[in-house]
């Protein structure tokens, strides 16, 4: 199982910025005519620099630069990165849709790519006819499809409508049918781009399960691009992180996900304030957010308890009149709840306070905390908006379970018990 099946050898891809032609023959002719008359180019963008010496380094952009990956037989490789990091370009090169500018990809197996489900579906054809057409587009022969036809139809759950034109299908059914065809592809290497983001929860579960069978049971090599860290963590045996067209991490999936999440956002989940918030009654020293049993440098995950630590000194002599309150906002800026230090009242001198959210309480996502210093339980004498922001990452989930986000803002784990035991 240790032979290299796919070798990505120093791949780079360059794109030229802006329009190459104006898009119509008449405009190109006009441009040419203006050049003959030695008049300025009528289609040049106003404000754009037309400095010849600068053109070389400003007109071109490297979408991918010197990517080297050896993919082993049976490996499930996750490719993660922010928008514009070059993930799709890499997949397009591997699927032979576009050519690399330099470098070479060598493959020992047939590559089938799923950049979209249902490519080439024709609305006038029946479900069955589309199975054949779509299968053939994905590289299967008629005989191969015929062998799997019954399985495909069964997996899609569209038995009743298989002889109905696809235009009468609901969009969900169309996706199911399309995914079913793709699921029965038998290439040596499967390249998948976020297709799991489609369909309802039940179908997602089915799809991920099938993906797992493909990679684990059947020993197929899979390259998988996704923004869903939960599915990357559960499916992939190895992951790479792309950033601005360059590969910045290659290795263990969990480490890759942490690397990606840390490098990603401009988040401050740990702050020392020095002398910046120094008032008459109090001075704020430090606020930090982390998983309770982890170090401050680790990624915060949803399936462990989260601790918010506040360090401040109280300088007046009536600490019982004051307390601190936090407001928690989600990434949409919606206020989720507020919480105060009622159980650990302030004291004179240095206060080192902790507050703990139980595990699973905060769902994965980005959060912002606002800090309020309140007097007499009614007047905020000091407010710091968005003083801290932090990201909670998906935990590892079991295979076959739902990979998406649960509804609602929080997921408290309440106390359940039997009433008659």
């Amino acid at each position, binding site marked *: 199982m240790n032979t290299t099946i796919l070798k990505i050898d120093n791949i780079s891809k360059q794109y030229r910025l802006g329009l190459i032609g104006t898009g119509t*023959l008449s405009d190109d002719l006009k441009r040419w005519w203006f050049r003959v008359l030695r008049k300025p180019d009528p289609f040049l963008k106003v404000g754009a620099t037309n400095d010849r010496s600068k053109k070389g380094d400003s007109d071109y952009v490297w979408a991918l630069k010197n990517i080297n990956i050896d993919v082993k037989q049976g490996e499930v490789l996750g490719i993660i990165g922010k928008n514009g990091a070059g993930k799709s370009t890499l997949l*397009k090169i*591997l*699927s032979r849709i576009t*050519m690399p500018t330099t470098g070479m990809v060598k493959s020992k197996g047939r590559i089938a790519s799923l*950049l979209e489900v249902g490519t080439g579906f024709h609305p006038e054809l029946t479900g069955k006819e589309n199975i054949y057409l779509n299968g053939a587009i994905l590289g299967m*022969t008629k005989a191969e499809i015929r062998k799997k036809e019954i399985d495909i139809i069964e997996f899609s759950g569209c038995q009743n409508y298989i002889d109905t*034109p696809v235009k009468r299908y609901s969009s969900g059914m169309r996706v199911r049918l399309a995914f079913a065809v793709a699921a029965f592809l038998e290439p040596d290497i499967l390249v998948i781009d976020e297709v799991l983001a489609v369909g309802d929860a039940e179908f997602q579960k089915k799809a991920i399960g099938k993906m797992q069978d493909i990679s684990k049971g059947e020993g197929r090599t899979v390259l998988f691009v996704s923004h869903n860290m939960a599915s990357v963590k559960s499916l992939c045996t190895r992951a790479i992180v792309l950033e601005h067209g360059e590969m910045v991490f290659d290795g263990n999936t969990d480490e890759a996900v942490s690397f990606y999440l840390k490098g990603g956002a401009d988040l401050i989940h740990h702050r020392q304030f020095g002398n910046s918030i120094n008032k008459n009654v109090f001075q704020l020293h430090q606020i930090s957010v982390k998983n309770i049993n982890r170090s401050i440098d680790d990624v915060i995950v949803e399936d462990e308890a989260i601790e918010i630590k506040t360090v401040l000194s109280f300088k007046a002599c009536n600490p019982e009149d004051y307390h601190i309150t936090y407001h928690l906002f989600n990434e949409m800026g919606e206020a989720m709840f507020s919480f105060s230090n009622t159980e650990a009242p302030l004291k004179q001198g240095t206060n080192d306070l902790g507050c703990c959210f139980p595990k699973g309480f905060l769902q994965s996502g980005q959060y912002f905390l606002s800090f309020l210093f309140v007097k007499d339980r009614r007047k905020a004498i000091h407010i710091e908006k968005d003083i801290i922001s932090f990201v909670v990452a998906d935990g590892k989930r079991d295979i076959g379970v739902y990979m998406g986000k649960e509804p609602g803002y929080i997921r408290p784990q309440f106390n359940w018990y039997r009433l008659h035991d």
Partner: protein
Amino acid sequence: MHTSKESQWLYTISSKRKLIDFNFKEIWQYRDLMFLFVRRNVIAMYKQTILGPLWYLIQPLFTALTFTIIFNKVANIETGMVPPFLFNLAGISVWSYFKNCLTGTSNTFSANAGMFSKVYFPRIIIPLSVVITNLFKFGIQLLIFTGFYIYYYSQGASIHINKLIFIFPILVVIMGLFGLGIGMLISSMVTKYKDLKFLVGFGVQLLMYLSAVMYPLSLMREKLPRFAWLVEYNPMAYVIEMARYMLLGDGTLSWGGFTYTLIVTLVILFSGIVVFNATEKRFIDTI
């Protein structure tokens, strides 16, 4: 699974460009896809239409009828011993096969950009499937032609099938390849200039008047000797003239014209493939 480490790579993807990168083995592997596209084209064409495949017949019949009235009854163009309607029907059926091949393949890239940006298969499958789909249409039109042929024959018209009819399939292939070649050349340019689409529609119509569809080549030579070269340089004029000669026994057959047509077709087809090959590799980045 390969056991030896130095085993051959199945294929490589790189920026290396060969002038002709024609992988016949791969095209053969995708033959099923080609026929499924043909099937899709045929089904999609008549689904949700009232008359269905009848449209294949109505179009040439009414065009032939119009031509007969305008060119033969009003303008008095002589068609020799052949009934004018049959003369026109033969010309139009043959011409429309060429026309459909050309226009159908000329928008290969723009019409399939969505699919081409998502999945790989040899792109030439699409224009090939268009040519085969049109062959199916042409077959139906030939049937209706045969019907009228029998009718006129029984009425005592002086028509006979020439013994060279066995070359007719070769002629059809040449015509298809000629349309394919021009279509592929244009398809590459349409990716860059969208307005060429309109030029194609208009240009093809003009070309028809230079292709001896509604008049015999001899008539052009006789009436407008100064401009006859325009028609004589057009390979399609020879194709149509030859087709009529084979089907109706009227007109002329020049082996020089046949050779000329064959050479032009091969040159156009070759350049079409070269340009198409170059385009299929870069058009996703530039479209």
